[in-house]
C-alpha cells in the first residue's frame, strides 16, 4: 500500500482511539511501561502524521488546499420542505484538514503529546494510571474528531466525546464526592450547550438543504450559502419572527460555544473542573477542549458574520466574561483556581475577538494561549508535585520557590509574562490583534460603534487585571520566603520542608511549552509594523484578492462589498475579510493605539503587582480588603453565581421534579388507576343492591320493565326518516301493529294525504313555498368532521364558525394540501356571515378569501340554491332545507306526529332563470 496522504487523517484519529481501546481493555493488567508506549506512542505518531499533513497543506499550490478523507456515510435524514420535494441529507464520516483544522490538529496532537509525557511523571504514583492514560487518549481522539470533522454532526461527536472525557477526568478521583459532582456539573452544563448546537444545526440544515446543496451538514456547503442563510427569515407557528436564520442559528450555536468555552452564563463548570488531575486541567480545561467553542465560531464564521446582532451579542458576552472572570481571579488564593478563572477570562478575549469579526485574531489567541496556559498549569502541577498536593496549592503559604524549583520557575515566569502581554511574547501579539479588532470594530464597523468602545474598554481593563493577578500569583508563589506549602493548622497536610524539583518527564514539556509561549507570537506580527503576518495569510487565503480590489476601487462601502465578493471567489477558511479590510483601510493610528493600550495594561497590572507584593509585601491589598470587605467577600465567592443558579434554576427544577413525581403518583395514577377502579367498585356495589336474593324483588323488577314496555306499545312511534334524491325526498316512517299514517310533506299545517297503512311516501318538492330554508354547506380543509351544514332561515344572520379554519379564512395563499403558511399569529380574521334574503343566501365576505365575482364590490355575494363559492381552501355550497311531517295512529286511538328536516342538494338552474322552478330540478 502506497503512502496516501488522505489516509493520514484516518490514522490521526484512529491511533489515539486504538490506544484508548488497548489501554482500556488490557491496561489494568499491563505493566506501566507498556501502557506508556501505547498511550504516548499513539498520540506522538498522530502528532507526526498531523505535521506531515500540515506540511502537505503548506506545500500545496493555491492558498486554499485541503486534505479530505471520506470514510463512510454514517446515516442520513430526510428534510421535508413545503411545496418542494424532500431532500435526502447524508451525514458523513468525513475528515477534512484545511488551513484552520490543520493548525488545530497540530496544536492538539502536539500539546497532547507533551502532556502525555508530563503525565508519566505526574501520575506515576496513582493507582488508576492506566485508566488515566485511557481517558487522555480517548480525549485526544475525540478532540481530533471534533477538529477534523467535515460536518456538524460529526463535529458534534467529538464535541460530546470531549465532554464525556472531561466528565470522566474531572471525576477521576471519584472517591471524593465533590470531584464527582464537579464532573457531573461540567457534563450537564455542557449538555445545555449541546442542546444549542443541536437546534442551531437543525436551523441551518433546514435552510441549506436543497437540490444544489444536498450535503447540507457539511461546513463547506453551509458556509457557501451563508448569504442565503442570512436572508431567510425564521418561521415560527406560521408567523415570521423578523429574525433571520443566521441570527437564530448563530445564537443557538453560541449557546453551545458558551457551554464548551465557558462563557457567561455557562462558565460556572470550568473552575470546578479543576478538581481533575493537573495534566487534565492543562490539556482539556485550558489548551484544547475549551477552545472548541472558539473553533466552532471560526468554522462557521461566514454564518455568524451574516448576523450583526448575533456578532454584537457574541462580542459583548465575550468581553463581559473576560472582565467578570478576571475580577474573580484578582482575589483567589488557590493556584489552579486563579489559572482557571484566567482561562475563562482569556476565552472571553477569544470569543469577543470572534464577535468583533477578528476571527484570525481570536484564533491566534487560541493558539498562543494553548502554549502559555498549558505551561502555567503544568508549572502549577510541578509546584503541587513538589509539595505533594493532589488538589491545589495555596499561594499564601508558598513563596521563594524560584530557588527551590528553578526549572519550574523559569518556565512559569516566561508563561506569566506571555499571558500578561509582556511585549514581544506570544501573548502580547495575540492580545494586540484582539484589541486592534475591537478598535476597528469601534471605529469602522457600521452597526454598533458605541458597543465597540465599551468592549474595547472592557478588554483593556480585563487585560490590566490579567497582568495584575498573574504577577500576583507569580510573585507570591516564587518570590519572597518559602512558607512550607500549607497552613500551620491544615489538618490534612504537613508542611513540606524541602520541596524538590520535578523529574525530567515533567520539566521537558515545560521547556517546550515555554519556548512556544515565547516564540509562536512571531507568526502574527502586528499590522502596525507592516511586517508579513503569516497567520492572517494562512487563515484568510482570499486576502490578496481582497486587497487588490480595494486598491482599485478605493475604500468606500461599496468597494468593500465588492472586495469581499472577490475574496469569496476563493472560498475562505475564515470570514474575517471584511473586518480586516476595514482594518486595512483604517488609519495606522488605530493599530498604534491598540498596541499602546495593550502595553499600558501590562505595565499597570504587572507594575502594581510588583509594587504591592515584592516591594511592600502585600500590606496594601490587605488594607484594601479590610476597607472593602463586602466586595472582597463577593469576589472570593465568585460573584455567587453558583448560588444564584442554584436558587434560580436548580432548586426550582428539583422542585418541579418532585412535583412531577408526586403528580404522577397521586394524580395521574390516581385518576387512571385508583379512580377508575373505585368507579368500577362503586358501580358493582350499586348493581349488587338489586341482587338481594328475594324472588319477589326480581319479579317486581320484571313487572316494572313489562309495564314500561306496555306503555311504549300504547303510543305510536313515527320514527320518521327521509332520503334525499335530486329534488325529491323518499320518506319512510316506522312500522307497527295496526299503524295508520298521514303526511304533511311541506309542514304547512295541511295534511297532504289521507290515512293509509303504507308507511312509505315520497314527494317531489317543486315550489319555493315548500322550502323551509336555505343551507350553507361549508367544507373546510381542517374541519374535523367533514362538511358542516349551517341552516339559514328568514331574518336570521349566521356566522360561519372559524374553528380550525383561522388560517384559511384570511386572504392568504393556500397550498395544495391545505396547509396555510400564515395567519395564526398577528391577524385576527373575521368570519363571513350568512343571511337569508328573498330566496337567496347572502354571504357577507368580511375578511374571508372569497372572490367577489358578482360584479359589485360591496363585499357580499348573493347565492342561489345549488351555487358554490370557494374561499381559501374551503367552499360553500348552497342547498335547500325541507321539512316533512307525518302523523301516526294506532289501534288504541293514540296519535303522534313527527317532523324532520332534510338538506336537499340541488343543481343550479340556468343563469337568470326562474329560481323556484330552477332551484328544484
Amino acid at each position, binding site marked *: 500500500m502506497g503512502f496516501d496522504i488522505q489516509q493520514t487523517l484516518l490514522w490521526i484519529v484512529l491511533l489515539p482511539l486504538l490506544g484508548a481501546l488497548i489501554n482500556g481493555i488490557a491496561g489494568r493488567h499491563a505493566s506501566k511501561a507498556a501502557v506508556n508506549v501505547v498511550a504516548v506512542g499513539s498520540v506522538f505518531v498522530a502528532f507526526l502524521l498531523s505535521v506531515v499533513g500540515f506540511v502537505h497543506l503548506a506545500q500545496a499550490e493555491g492558498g486554499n488546499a485541503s486534505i479530505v478523507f471520506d470514510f463512510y456515510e454514517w446515516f442520513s435524514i430526510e428534510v421535508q420542505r413545503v411545496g418542494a420535494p424532500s431532500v435526502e441529507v447524508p451525514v458523513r464520516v468525513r475528515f477534512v484538514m484545511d488551513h484552520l483544522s490543520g493548525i488545530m490538529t497540530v496544536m492538539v496532537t502536539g500539546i497532547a503529546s507533551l502532556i502525555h509525557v508530563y503525565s508519566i511523571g505526574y501520575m506515576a504514583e496513582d493507582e488508576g494510571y492506566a485508566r488515566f492514560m485511557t481517558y487522555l487518549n480517548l480525549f485526544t481522539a475525540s478532540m481530533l474528531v471534533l477538529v477534523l470533522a467535515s460536518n456538524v454532526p460529526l463535529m458534534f461527536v467529538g464535541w460530546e466525546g470531549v465532554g464525556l472525557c472531561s466528565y470522566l477526568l474531572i471525576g477521576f478521583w471519584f472517591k471524593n464526592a465533590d470531584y464527582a459532582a464537579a464532573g457531573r456539573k461540567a457534563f450537564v452544563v455542557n449538555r445545555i450547550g449541546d442542546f444549542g448546537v443541536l437546534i442551531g444545526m437543525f436551523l441551518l440544515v433546514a435552510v441549506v438543504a436543497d437540490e444544489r446543496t444536498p450535503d447540507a451538514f457539511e461546513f463547506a456547503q453551509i458556509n457557501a450559502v451563508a448569504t442565503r442563510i442570512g436572508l431567510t427569515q425564521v418561521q415560527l407557528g406560521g408567523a415570521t419572527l423578523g429574525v433571520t436564520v443566521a441570527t437564530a442559528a448563530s445564537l443557538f450555536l453560541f449557546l453551545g460555544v458558551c457551554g464548551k468555552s465557558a462563557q457567561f452564563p455557562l462558565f460556572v463548570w470550568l473552575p470546578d473542573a479543576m478538581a481533575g488531575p493537573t495534566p487534565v486541567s492543562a490539556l482539556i480545561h485550558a489548551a484544547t477542549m475549551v477552545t472548541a467553542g472558539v473553533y466552532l465560531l471560526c468554522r462557521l464564521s461566514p454564518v455568524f458574520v451574516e448576523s450583526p446582532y448575533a456578532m454584537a451579542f457574541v462580542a459583548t458576552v465575550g468581553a463581559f466574561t473576560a472582565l467578570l472572570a478576571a475580577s474573580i481571579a484578582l482575589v483567589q488564593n488557590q493556584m489552579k483556581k486563579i489559572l482557571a478563572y484566567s482561562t475563562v477570562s482569556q476565552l472571553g478575549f477569544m470569543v469577543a475577538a470572534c464577535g468583533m469579526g477578528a476571527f484570525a485574531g481570536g484564533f491566534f489567541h487560541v493558539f498562543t494561549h494553548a502554549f502559555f496556559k498549558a505551561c502555567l498549569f503544568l508549572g502549577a502541577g510541578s509546584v503541587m508535585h513538589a509539595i505533594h498536593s493532589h488538589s491545589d496549592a495555596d499561594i499564601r503559604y508558598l513563596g521563594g520557590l524560584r530557588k527551590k524549583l528553578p526549572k519550574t520557575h523559569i518556565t512559569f515566569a516566561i508563561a506569566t509574562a506571555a499571558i500578561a502581554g509582556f511585549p514581544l511574547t506570544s501573548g502580547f501579539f495575540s492580545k494586540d490583534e484582539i484589541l486592534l479588532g475591537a478598535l476597528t470594530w469601534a471605529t469602522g464597523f457600521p452597526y454598533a460603534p458605541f458597543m465597540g468602545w465599551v468592549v474595547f474598554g472592557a478588554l483593556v481593563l480585563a487585560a490590566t487585571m490579567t497582568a495584575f493577578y498573574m504577577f500576583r500569583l507569580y510573585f507570591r508563589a516564587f518570590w519572597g520566603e518559602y512558607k512550607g506549602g500549607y497552613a500551620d493548622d491544615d489538618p490534612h497536610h504537613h508542611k513540606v520542608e524541602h520541596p524538590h524539583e520535578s523529574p525530567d518527564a515533567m520539566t521537558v514539556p515545560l521547556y517546550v511549552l515555554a519556548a512556544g509561549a515565547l516564540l509562536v507570537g512571531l507568526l502574527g506580527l502586528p499590522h502596525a509594523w507592516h511586517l508579513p503576518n503569516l497567520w492572517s495569510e494562512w487563515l484568510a487565503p482570499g486576502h490578496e484578492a481582497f486587497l487588490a480590489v480595494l486598491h482599485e476601487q478605493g475604500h468606500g462601502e461599496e468597494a468593500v462589498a465588492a472586495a469581499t465578493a472577490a475574496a469569496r471567489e476563493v472560498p475562505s477558511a475564515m470570514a474575517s475579510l471584511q473586518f480586516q479590510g476595514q482594518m486595512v483601510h483604517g488609519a495606522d493610528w488605530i493599530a498604534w493605539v491598540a498596541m499602546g493600550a495593550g502595553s499600558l495594561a501590562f505595565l499597570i497590572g504587572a507594575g502594581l503587582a510588583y509594587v504591592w507584593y515584592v516591594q511592600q509585601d502585600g500590606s496594601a491589598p490587605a488594607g484594601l480588603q479590610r476597607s472593602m470587605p463586602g466586595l472582597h467577600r463577593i469576589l472570593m465567592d465568585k460573584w455567587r453565581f453558583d448560588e444564584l443558579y442554584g436558587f434560580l434554576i436548580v432548586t426550582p427544577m428539583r422542585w418541579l421534579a418532585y412535583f412531577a413525581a408526586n403528580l404522577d403518583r397521586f394524580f395521574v395514577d390516581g385518576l387512571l388507576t385508583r379512580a377508575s377502579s373505585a368507579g368500577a367498585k362503586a358501580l358493582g356495589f350499586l348493581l*349488587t343492591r338489586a*341482587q*338481594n*336474593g*328475594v*324472588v*319477589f324483588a326480581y*319479579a*317486581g323488577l320484571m*313487572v316494572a320493565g313489562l309495564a314500561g314496555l306496555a306503555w311504549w306499545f300504547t303510543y305510536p312511534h313515527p320514527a320518521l326518516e327521509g332520503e334525499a334524491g335530486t329534488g325529491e325526498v323518499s320518506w319512510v316512517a316506522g312500522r307497527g301493529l295496526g299503524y295508520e299514517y298521514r303526511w304533511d310533506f311541506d309542514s304547512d299545517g295541511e295534511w297532504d294525504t289521507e290515512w293509509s297503512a303504507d308507511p312509505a311516501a315520497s314527494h317531489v318538492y317543486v315550489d319555493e313555498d315548500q322550502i323551509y330554508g336555505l343551507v350553507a354547506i361549508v367544507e373546510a380543509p381542517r374541519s374535523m368532521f367533514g362538511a358542516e351544514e349551517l341552516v339559514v332561515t328568514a331574518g336570521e344572520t349566521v356566522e360561519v364558525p372559524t374553528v380550525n379554519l383561522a388560517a384559511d379564512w384570511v386572504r392568504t395563499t393556500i397550498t395544495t394540501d391545505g396547509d396555510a403558511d400564515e395567519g395564526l399569529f398577528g391577524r385576527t380574521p373575521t368570519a363571513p356571515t350568512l343571511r337569508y334574503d328573498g330566496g337567496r343566501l347572502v354571504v357577507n365576505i368580511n375578511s374571508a378569501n372569497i372572490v367577489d365575482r358578482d360584479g359589485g364590490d360591496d363585499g357580499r355575494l348573493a347565492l342561489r340554491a345549488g351555487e358554490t363559492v370557494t374561499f381559501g381552501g374551503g367552499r360553500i355550497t348552497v342547498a335547500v332545507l325541507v321539512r316533512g311531517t307525518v302523523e301516526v295512529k294506532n289501534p288504541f286511538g293514540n296519535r303522534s306526529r313527527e317532523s324532520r328536516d332534510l338538506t336537499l342538494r340541488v343543481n343550479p338552474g340556468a343563469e337568470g332563470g326562474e329560481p323556484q322552478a330552477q332551484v328544484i330540478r
Partner: protein
Amino acid sequence: MEIGLGTYLALASVLFGIGAVGFLTRRNILLQLMSIEVMLNSVNLTLVAFNRWTPGEPGAWNHHGQVFAFFVIAVAAAEAAVGLAILISLYRLKSSVESDSADLLKH
C-alpha cells in the same frame, strides 16, 4: 259479539295478568308455581289461537303454533319437576315454603 282472534288474545292476556298477579301476591312457592302454570297456559292459548288464524294450505298445514305449544307444555312439565324439587329441598333446609325465606343468594 263476534268471536275472533282478538277475543282469544284478550282472554289470554287476562289469564296472563291473573297468573302474574298471583305470582306477585302469593308467597307460597307452590302457589307461585301454579301461577306460573297459568301464565304458561295463557301463552299456549295465544300460540294456538294464532295458529288457528294462519293454518296454511290443506296438505301443507302450518302447525308452528301448535308445535310451539307442545314444546311449551314439555318445558312446563320440566319446570314443574325441577321447581318442585327445589321446593322440597328448600323445605328441608328452612322448614318453610315461602319464597321470601330463600334469600341466601343475596349480594
